[in-house]
């Protein structure tokens, strides 16, 4: 109940005209940076950081977090409409969102995405509100071995249910892992795969790869195959939004599961990207319509979106209480916190209760405002599909190139984006799945760090992954998930054999 009182106090802090205006501004700006690929949430928040120096900390954090929520919402838009993720964490949304848009169900897909995202975010804030004390203790139990087991779990839950041909999936994963190793190795300090090129020191940016493989690759494919958007649903129809909202409660299981995965990954913190992939994988496995995933299934949009936003909001707690950034954006905000004169730590909740609870209250309000604003844009964005490809195509390519430039301001990245664009086209032609490559790039880097740190700590013994109940449970769960398709196949063949003899008799 103490938390509830504190939250009410927080609402009193956040519900001023000044703060609500900042939220609206932040969300709108966030939607804009989220929609543009490359110019993601971390860039948006970094750009705003200098403005916040002259603000009081509560207003500053409200502006920055609202921008983050807006960017998370905006990132899904281009995933669904053009198969180009605006944010790394919206990659999984493309799997079913884009097929839905191609079927002429763009309005429905966007509405589902935004509503479920808002639901996930709100559930994440509720958990933060209720469990703030308990959660920090839980996060402290995560050492390198625990981190690695979480990444392993994310990997297994997604890969085990992949639909691509196994050998091609492995090639795709291996490529992703090797791209992730380029640059300085953070455990030995050595340069890897840079070939003494200065441009390779940065490593291969994940964003540039996404822009290339998805953005430019998709454009090449569209050029070759001709435009196939069905313009049936491209007219502005606000009623379609409402009818989609009415159908949303049907998917409550997926939404709850996605939120749970997201909150857990936000707190531990595995990050929103890993959360969205994991949630998609689990939904595909557990849904009755699992076989239809990838062809435009609403659940395939809802699952990653709830997890993405739940993780984004839940990650704010370890940031404040422990100083661990759960995402790249949280890292920037952490720097802001220090400049505003606040030290993250358990004492922040006691000494600066107005700041902490003002921020948490603003997360409720900011997300509600975000959903309303972004839903209002749905008919507008859906209408973009009726613009002839000869106009929208060049615009998208321009935005992609600009996005690749903003990642590091390096001309080399432009060439990289073009090369990955050609590679993306080739991979689609040859039926190599792109998602495993992306997943390997995003979490491969961190998983490798965590694995090698745990190996250093255990002096090379793999048993460290079963050394404590927590890490042991997660590792075992990961292996069970990985093995489950084989077990299921085995069971099917056994059952077939059992049923065979009576048939012969």
């Amino acid at each position, binding site marked *: 109940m103490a938390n509830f009182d504190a939250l009410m106090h927080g609402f009193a802090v956040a519900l001023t005209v000044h703060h609500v205006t900042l939220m609206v501004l932040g969300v709108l700006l966030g939607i804009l940076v989220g929609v543009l690929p490359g110019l993601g949430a*971390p860039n948006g928040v*970094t750009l705003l*950081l*200098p403005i916040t*120096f*002259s603000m009081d900390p509560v207003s500053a954090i409200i502006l920055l977090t609202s921008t983050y929520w807006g960017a998370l919402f905006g990132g899904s838009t281009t995933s669904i409409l053009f198969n180009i993720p605006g944010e790394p964490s919206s990659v999984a949304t493309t799997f079913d969102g884009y097929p839905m848009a191609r079927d002429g169900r763009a309005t429905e897909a966007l509405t589902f995405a935004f509503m479920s995202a808002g639901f996930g975010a709100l559930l994440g804030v509720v958990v933060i509100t209720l469990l703030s004390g308990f959660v920090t203790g839980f*996060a*402290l*139990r*995560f*050492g*390198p071995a625990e981190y690695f087991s979480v990444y392993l779990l994310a990997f297994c839950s997604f890969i085990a249910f992949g639909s691509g041909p196994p050998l091609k999936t492995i090639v795709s994963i291996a490529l992703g892992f090797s791209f992730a190793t380029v*640059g*300085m190795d*953070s*455990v*030995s*300090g*050595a*340069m890897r795969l840079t070939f*003494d090129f*200065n441009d390779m*020191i*940065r*490593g291969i940016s994940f964003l540039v790869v996404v822009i290339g493989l998805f953005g430019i690759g998709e454009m090449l494919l569209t050029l070759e195959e001709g435009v196939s958007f069905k313009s049936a649903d491209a007219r502005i129809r606000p009623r379609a939004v409402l009818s989609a909202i009415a159908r949303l409660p049907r998917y409550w299981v997926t939404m709850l599961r996605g939120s749970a995965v997201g909150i857990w990954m936000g707190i531990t913190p595995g990050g929103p990207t890993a959360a969205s992939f994991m949630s998609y994988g689990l939904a595909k496995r557990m849904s009755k319509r699992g076989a239809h995933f990838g062809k435009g299934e609403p659940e395939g949009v809802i699952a990653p979106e709830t997890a993405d936003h739940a993780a984004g909001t839940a990650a704010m707690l370890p940031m404040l209480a*422990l*100083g*661990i*950034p759960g995402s*790249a954006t949280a*890292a*920037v*905000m*952490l*720097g802001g916190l*220090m*400049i505003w*004169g606040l*030290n*993250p*730590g*358990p*004492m*922040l909740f006691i000494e600066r209760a107005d700041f902490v609870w003002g921020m948490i209250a603003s997360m409720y309000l900011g997300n509600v405002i975000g959903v309303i604003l972004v839903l209002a844009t749905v008919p507008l964005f859906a209408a973009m599909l009726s613009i002839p490809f000869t106009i929208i195509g060049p615009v998208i390519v321009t935005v992609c190139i600009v996005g690749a430039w903003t990642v*590091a*301001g390096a001309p080399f990245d432009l060439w990289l984006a073009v090369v990955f664009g050609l590679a993306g086209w080739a991979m689609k032609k040859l039926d190599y799945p792109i998602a495993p490559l992306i997943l390997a790039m995003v979490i491969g880097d961190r998983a490798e*760090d965590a694995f090698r*740190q745990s190996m*250093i*700590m255990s*002096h090379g013994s793999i048993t460290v992954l079963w050394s404590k109940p927590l890490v042991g449970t997660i590792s075992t769960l990961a292996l069970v998930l990985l093995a489950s398709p084989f077990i299921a196949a085995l069971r099917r063949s056994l059952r077939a054999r059992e049923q065979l003899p009576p048939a012969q008799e």
Partner: protein
Amino acid sequence: MQRNTFVRAALAAGAIAALAPGYAQAQGEWRPTRNVEFVVTSGAGGGTDVFARTVQAAITKHNLLPVSVIVTNKGAGAGAEGFVYARSAQGDAHKVVFATNNTWLLPLVSRVAFKADDFTPIGALAFDEFMLWVKYDSPHKTAADFLAAARAANPPLRMGGSQPKDTDQTLTSLIQRAANVRFTYVPFRGGGEAGVQLAGGHIDANTNNPSESIGGWRGGQVRPVCVFRREPMARGNLVTTTQGWHDIPTCASQGIPIEEFNMPRTTFLPPGTTAAQQAFWVGVMRRVTETPEWQEYITRTSQSTRFLTGEAFADHIRKDITASRDIFEAEGWLIN
């Protein structure tokens, strides 16, 4: 004709006379004419990033520059990205590099395309302290307790810190050598992460800067044992209810014979910049260290402020390279 020449000569002389003061000023006093870029050799949120953004905030608030300041983070490859970027901006005094001692130490341990003397030094604005930290409920009350436990431990105690072959691991090897002990060094992505790993009991100690662990100390998660300094830190406010930074004894007084270990917060200009440009930036940075914003930053992060420039800064760099080269050589980290 003759008159004409005379007029021309007179005009020319007049022009020179009229321009002379301005010309002298341009020579002696350079000023930025377009927006300035602060190149930060760490990621957003890192120690160098907070340093650069504090300088940016102080400059903006007190109008120390006639132009705007943009901060860009180029922290890949332990900062190599930023240095390489600045090195290619030959003669451009509108770019200022924010760094630590990695400017001159990184080229010793890593194959990077720059050397310390490529850059035009501005100065060191502050020095960040190092402390030995243990978990709050650790049985080791003093550094002597900790060393005794480290000598007896098998497998060795785990010492955490930031990226490999950087300050934390260097200090760890110094402790190993000075006190004849052995640790397992576990590199994390930064001091903040090493602090949380210590609070969770996944490592046994770390050598974080005060600002990296102040939250954990106040929150009863971690505790400083000693400070790597000649004398205890200056008397200031209490951090916890009973103790302040000044209550922490020096490590040398507790049996770890390391007199001093700290990390400078440095600024540089790209190669080929002029003495006038250097002098301008030395002036700006000196004024920054006199602002209340800077003082507030120094107090909050428990650093020591000392503006080191010119020959004193060059001397500091030379001495540090000599001392570090010995350790790096002994550890086998030198690349050539």
